[in-house]
């Protein structure tokens, strides 16, 4: 649980973060979205005190962040940044071992932890551990960056545009991996991004910032269906809204009894993928099956289109 309480940051006369309050429940992902200069990164950096707030306080699990000295606080909080920030003079294994080493873990425990994390991120410890970051691809560097941030098993992970430098295919994979790992460890994540798509995809809650102010802090569905201001609405992109709304629903939520012809769709797929498949194959309905292949019923184009409609809007 992270409690940000009326936090303000002022440089000389300019307020870059104004009176922001929000709380992130333990084990959830909060994504801070905004254009550049919106104060989102400053807000994030105030949580681990890379930036000292002018006023207000931040509590992590009830403990004021100012009750610890900054470096002790930061060792308890994972930190991953855009461009990964790996140390070029240290091997992958040494990079991941950074915080455990600062905390004085036993060498055997560090070694085990590094191997576990590399395996978790689909990198063979024997092959990749001794390499230098320059010998890795961009996607691998980014994974090592996140692995390093998770090395000391932090309860909280801060991420500043962690996937910003990746190409779309690798980015989508990295997002899915992050989501899986977050569920597994129950880590509380606060992430900064300028990409609304990423925010909707990953966030349990989304905080939209502009000009240092928090405009709206709500679930992705609420942000999509009831944007608080015109700015939030413009960030969403009017043309993409129905599809973004559909991407929050899985086919399991819209499946109905009945049968249909053609290739079955997986119940885990998003409603957006389902509608896309129907449009592409020119079908009105398709069978839906569970992950293990058991038939669950069918999904229709009409049902999916209803799901994409702004709630409360009567069909014409």
């Amino acid at each position, binding site marked *: 649980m992270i409690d940000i309480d009326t936090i303000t940051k002022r440089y000389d006369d300019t307020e870059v973060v104004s009176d922001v309050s929000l709380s992130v429940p333990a084990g959830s992902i909060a994504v801070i979205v905004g254009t550049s200069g919106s104060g989102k990164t400053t807000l994030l950096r105030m949580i*681990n005190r*890379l930036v000292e707030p002018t006023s207000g306080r931040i509590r992590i699990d009830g403990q004021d962040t100012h009750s610890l000295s*900054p*470096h*002790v*606080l*930061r*060792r*308890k909080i994972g*930190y991953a*940044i*855009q*461009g*990964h*920030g*790996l*140390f*070029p*003079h240290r*091997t992958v*294994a040494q990079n991941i071992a*950074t*915080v455990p080493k*600062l905390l004085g873990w036993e060498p055997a425990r560090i070694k085990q932890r590094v191997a576990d994390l590399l395996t978790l991120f689909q990198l063979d410890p*024997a092959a990749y*551990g*001794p*390499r*230098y970051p*320059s*010998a890795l691809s961009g996607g691998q560097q980014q994974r090592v*960056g996140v692995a*390093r*941030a998770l090395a000391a098993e932090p309860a909280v992970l*801060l991420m500043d545009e962690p996937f910003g430098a990746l190409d779309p295919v690798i980015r989508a994979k990295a997002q899915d991996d992050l989501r899986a790992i977050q569920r597994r460890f129950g880590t509380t994540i606060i992430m900064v991004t300028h990409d609304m798509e990423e925010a909707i995809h990953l966030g349990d809650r989304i905080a939209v910032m502009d000009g240092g102010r928090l405009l709206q802090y709500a679930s992705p569905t609420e942000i999509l269906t009831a944007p608080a201001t015109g700015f939030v609405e413009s960030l969403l992109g009017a043309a993409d809204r129905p599809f973004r709304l559909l991407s929050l629903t899985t086919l399991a939520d819209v499946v109905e009894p009945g049968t249909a012809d053609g290739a079955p769709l997986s119940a885990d797929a998003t409603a957006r993928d389902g509608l896309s498949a129907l449009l592409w194959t020119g079908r009105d309905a398709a069978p839906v099956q569970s992950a293990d292949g058991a038939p669950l019923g069918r999904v229709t184009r009409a049902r999916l289109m209803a799901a994409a409609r702004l709630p409360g809007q009567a069909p014409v």
Partner: protein
Amino acid sequence: MALSAAIQGGRAGAARFRPDRIGLVISLVALGGLCLPFATVKPNRILAGVAKTILEALPQTGSILLLAVLFVAITIACLRSPAWLRLGASVLVLLALAGAIGVSGIVLTPSGNPYARVAPAAGFWLLAFAMALLTADALTRLRPGPFGRVAALAATAVVFGFILKSGLWDNLSILKEYAVRADSFWAAAAAHVELALGSLVAAVAFGLPIGILCHRVPKIRDAVLNALNIVQTVPSIALFGLLIAPLGWIAVHVPGAKAIGIQGIGMAPAFVALFLYSLLPVVANTVAGLAAVSPSANDAARGMGMTERERLFQVELPLALPVIITGIRIVLVQNIGLATIAALIGGGGFGVFVFQGIGQTAIDLVLLGTVPTVALAFAAAVILDAVVELLSTPSVRDSAP
């Protein structure tokens, strides 16, 4: 025009006749060397000498052998031959030249005249220069690693040591100068190294913290670097002169100062001057190296909870080290050269021979001071270049899992 036409023709014709441009230039230099006298014989160390060509300076078989290997090497140099062949040929000629000049020393020294001097002449130096160029070019093409380059340096040193020890060159004028000054030569060598290395160590001890401070406190950076720049522009002789008064004052007024050798002239002002000259490269490179550390690595280091000290020693300094060592390399090579001037104010070093030689118009004595200075500077450059390369290319090879 004719030459370029030949090159064009060669290119259009059989591939094996394509000339190597660098090799052509080197060959022209070597041919020029052949036209100039190989050695000179002087009745004593000051009088003008009589020039001797290769044919006059060597026994017939010797001169034929030398010319033969030389022409083979020139042919290899002009063709697009493999680098190892060029290296082998040029090293062979260099060894042959070393042998030939030693033999000509023995042949040309008139019996019964202990004052006569045989010295290498322009032709020898030009030939040696051309072949050294060919060696360097071949080495560059072979791209040896840092260890390979240091090994080549060590091999060169061993060969020179062997030749000197064998007495082959004992009849040459430089070694005759050495023979009468053996003791003072090694004292001068010790003083030279002490000046160059000692002032470097002092400059690093002070310059590194100053550089770190300049990096952390940007306000003082420009002031410090400008001040050091101004020191750098003061001519060395002027700096020695400026230091006489304050150091003399310290020697008289500070108890114990005189006992550790501080005085207006001698080693102390030379040391201080070299130290001051060394500060700018050390400080400037420390600042540049630290500034070049990637901001994201720094941000990550802070964000992960490194203290300022941990960040400095675990991230900033290791990453800045290649640039800092480059600064140290500049300082060391510069100091080895500059330490020669220290002799002007009684600071010792190889400069003693240079200035004595100039005073006596004895060029052999000047060379006795110059050659070891150049050799030292060259060796220092090769070794520190290798260190820089080792530090700046982390690879899978040197990482223990």
